[in-house]
């Protein structure tokens, strides 16, 4: 830090650039590695499978990223996914997909609205609210379905599923298109609109944002609604997959989405991150897991590696911050002076002793 030559500055800038875009680099590395070493990785079928799994988790990750950006937490996305899936399929026999899917998505928005109101207006910690909501929804799901998973077998049950999986051009199905549109829309929204930039401000420093005239409560509520919306869309996409909704449809998604969003560089402390990064993080994890399976390794390796990656990223970020906190505001010339004084003190002590 002491000598800031132009070379040193350039090096520092490169490091910051790498750190900011680490998820794209990670994706490149993982993808290249799998493309070269994993058997049968670069087949159209396999890549389509990856895109399909990514599509579903990535939609839910959009909302979760925004929640983290405003420095809140939403543990209920997993159960919203399941709930939307169950509602979307369960109501089909009464009102058809045309009615059931919008209702499922609206239900997700409504749950998000309740979460948001409780967090913003009743001022309860979002950890508590969404944890309570998780418990309530889990109960609701099991009560509605009486503990049976829903699977439809009528001839037209797969209509939506078939349409979603229709290959438009290689790798791109309507399912992927929906996700990509959502990702693109929310990326533009967060990056280039005033409201989107304000969200970062709310997350970075709520009080300052409030003093700057931003309606922080409204922003919080709307973000929770968006989170409910994207989770519900993800849930519907999940359920339409096989025209079946198991009651633990979204259980793994919660952990999956949380780790991906964090790995993507969105901070729990708020005010940092982006939807595109989360999308690539989900994609990287999917590619990695897919590769692990292709190598013939089991589910247990997958779980272990997921944990190791998440732990590494969290520890790395914490350590960077820790070092930053230790050195921030330190002036090297003053520290040098302190060292000299210490040296003098030691010398004088020795003199006294001697």
């Amino acid at each position, binding site marked *: 830090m002491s000598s800031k030559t132009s070379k040193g500055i350039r090096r520092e800038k490169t490091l910051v650039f790498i750190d900011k875009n680490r998820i794209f680099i990670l994706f490149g590395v993982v993808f290249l590695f799998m493309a070269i070493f994993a058997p049968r990785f670069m087949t159209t079928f396999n890549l389509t499978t990856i895109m399909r799994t990514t599509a579903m988790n990535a939609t839910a990750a959009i909302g979760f990223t925004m929640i983290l950006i405003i420095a809140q937490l939403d543990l209920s996305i997993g159960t919203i996914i399941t709930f939307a899936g169950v509602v979307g399929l369960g109501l089909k026999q009464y009102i058809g997909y045309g009615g059931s899917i919008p209702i499922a998505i609206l239900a997700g928005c409504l749950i998000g609205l309740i979460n948001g109101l*409780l967090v913003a207006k009743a001022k*309860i910690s979002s*950890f508590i609210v969404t944890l309570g909501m998780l418990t309530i929804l889990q109960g609701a799901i099991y009560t509605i379905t009486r*503990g049976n998973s829903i699977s439809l077998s009528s001839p037209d049950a797969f209509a939506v599923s078939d349409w979603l999986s229709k290959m438009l051009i290689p790798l791109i199905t309507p399912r992927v298109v929906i996700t990509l549109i959502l990702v693109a829309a929310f990326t533009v929204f967060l990056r280039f609109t005033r409201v989107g930039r304000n969200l970062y401000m709310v997350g970075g420093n709520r009080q300052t944002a409030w003093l700057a005239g931003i309606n922080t409560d409204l922003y919080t509520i709307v973000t929770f609604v968006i989170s409910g919306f994207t989770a519900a869309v993800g849930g519907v996409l999940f359920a339409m997959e096989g025209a079946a909704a198991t009651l633990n449809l979204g259980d793994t998604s919660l952990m999956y989405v*949380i780790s991906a969003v964090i790995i993507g560089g969105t901070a729990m402390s708020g005010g940092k991150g982006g939807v595109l990064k989360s999308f690539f993080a989900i994609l990287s994890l999917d590619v990695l897991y897919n590769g692990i399976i292709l190598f013939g390794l089991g589910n247990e390796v997958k779980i272990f590696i997921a944990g190791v990656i998440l*732990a590494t990223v969290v520890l790395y970020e914490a350590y960077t911050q820790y070092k930053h906190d230790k050195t921030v505001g330190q002036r090297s010339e003053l520290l040098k002076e302190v060292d000299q004084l210490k040296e003098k003190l030691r010398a004088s002590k020795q003199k006294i002793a001697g």
Partner: protein
Amino acid sequence: MEQAKYEAIKPGVLRHSVVNWVFVTIGVYLIAIVLLVLGIVLQLTGTINNFLTAQNMLNIIDAVSMLGIVAVGMAFVTYSGHYADLSVPTTMALTGIVAVEMLKFGFVAAMLSAIVVGFVVGLINAVAIGKFRANPIIWTLAVNYMSMGVIRLVWVNKQIYPDMTASTVRASEMFDAIFRLRFFDKIALPMVMMIILVIVLQFVMRRTKFGVQLKMTGAARTPARFSGINVERMIAIAFIICALTATIGGLAVTSLNRVGAWYNGKGYEFKAVTAVVIGGVTLAGGRGSIIGVLGGVLVIGILNNILTLLGVGTFSQDMIRGAIFIIVVFVNARSLRKMGRDYE
């Protein structure tokens, strides 16, 4: 939040201070009493039977004793201002499965190795969160994943049974019997352990130097550090206590299920957080007590008992429990705010 600062000073708001004081001070036991009265009324009107019997009261405590053991440890993490330790479920599973595996070296070796494993997990959390200030929720989630991976890798998705791994029949029988031990034919060992832990940890939290320093750390980390408290060590000890109580809980669950498996302890993290927070330990840290947590555990127990006697299904119970959880936290936080003790 900004408005709240001024609300607290307005004299009109203090009118309700008595009500708020009751909520904050007696808090959870008030709910427990209300639930007990509700149960008695329901019994008198003949809706439910056998609520107010000694056996049923014992059953209530018995049913939540393992949750209680885990929750009192979790309370220290919340008390230190670090939300929750989400690695509890796999810590329970891991220590249990290690104990079953080590039964081949005898009963004592099994217990000791479980405690060592629990301590190591706690230490890992302690270093990452205490020293390097990793985000507690995400870090413990990652540790949860990793230990789950370890269990699945080492035992390849298998469950192991004490009578298959133990070298002698005696060791396996002892492992099965230890948590089934009953005093006077009625009071089970987990219940006794819970009560001992509550007493000991309440003392630790309120009457020792560590407890007081932890309170300061939880309430205001930076001022605590500037006043010469070793905050890193305080947080580390909190996480280690949590891991050790999870170890006891894990051993109990494994012993009672007679099987070591990856799914032992599933769901305990959220249940424990519910009990801790209902019990009045706020997520902001530095407030609450272990006696309160015991109250939270008892409220969950009584509620479940009444609902079961009413014939409400397990899943509808979930919904009611979730709703009560949110309401209790809301009332508690609101009272604190109105009393001017909390701004957020």
